[in-house]
């Protein structure tokens, strides 16, 4: 150990470099949660928002099995509202108009890539006048 200063400096440089991503992230701007376009006038999906946020993929898989395996297509939510269990007819289409402004914004943010849309066809987004009529312009 002839040159402790060099050693300490080297170590410090290494630690600084190795933890660089952390410092960089902390110093940079805070990521902002994506702004989601929600259907106007609706207060909740077919289940409470907290549940949907955490478990919508479980609900969708349940829907999938009910429709495909059991041949049941109607779903009654806790308020007695009946909807068709369908990705492209209900989730997108009847409720949300633009998948890119809801599902995708959050999935891109969280780095999730559902494969469902490899098969399920995203319905076309209605023209702007139709959207404005529904009070949805974002």
């Amino acid at each position, binding site marked *: 150990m002839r040159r402790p200063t060099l050693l300490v400096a080297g170590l410090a440089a290494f630690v600084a470099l190795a933890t660089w991503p952390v410092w960089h992230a902390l110093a940079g701007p805070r990521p902002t949660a994506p702004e989601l376009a929600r259907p106007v006038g609706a207060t909740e999906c077919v289940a409470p928002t907290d549940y949907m946020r955490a478990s919508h993929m479980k609900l969708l898989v349940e829907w*999938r099995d009910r429709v*495909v*395996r059991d*041949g049941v*297509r109607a779903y009654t939510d806790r308020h007695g509202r009946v909807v068709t269990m369908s990705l*492209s*007819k209900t989730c997108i*289409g009847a409720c949300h108009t633009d998948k890119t402004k809801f599902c995708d914004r959050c999935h891109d943010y969280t780095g999730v890539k559902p*494969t469902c849309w*490899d*098969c*399920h*066809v*995203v*319905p*076309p987004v209605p023209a702007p006048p139709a959207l404005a009529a529904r009070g949805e312009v974002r």
Partner: protein
Amino acid sequence: MSTSRRVFLRLAATAATAAAAGSALGCAASGGARRRLAMAIDVRKCLDVHGCRACVDACHEAHNVPAIPDRAHEVKWVWKEPFERALAVREPATLPAALRGSEVLVLCNHCDNPPCTRVCPTGATWKRDDGVVAMDEHRCIGCRYCVAACPYGSRSFNFVDPRPFVAHPTSDYPTRTKGVVEKCTFCEERLAVGRLPACVDACPAGAMVFGDLDERGSEIRKLLNERYSVRRRPELGTRPQVFYVI
């Protein structure tokens, strides 16, 4: 001891009677509700509209079936085959001239004893209580055992991504992906909302009749009672539920 044995026997007998009555009731109830969906194709009516493809187009449009030009990769739900081959006619010379060399519609036979469902390792294809041989694309792992098992060639495998070959995808029905098997489902998505299969609806000649074989007085029951019909390869014991009225 003997008393309790007697009590036991009496109880057992009561329970057995109740169980028998229950199952008899259950049978009666489900027997009434059970359906046996089938299709009859009136071959001559179909031939009257020579060269017609209305049913094929309606089906393939409704289900986003890709039009892949490469025959090795082709995907089809309903199509036409030479009559002699489709119905394995032993002596073509004995056929009426109108039928000789003609073409006949073929699709999944929704067999009563389907070989395809027995070989599926994931339960992705199975026979529903109403007779439909159903597909669950979510569970298909693309092993193609079912393709090999089907003696009618009714199943297609997606060797390539089908999306680019669907000219006008409808969002009412999913496409499939590369690596899964697909076939006619008797339009289970339309049956679920009380509609007839797309091909039956589209036929301009009324050549396709769809219905419940167990329902007395149904159109298909009547037709099969009145006219002579054949099925594809009956010797295999698959009991097809698509009948060809000659």
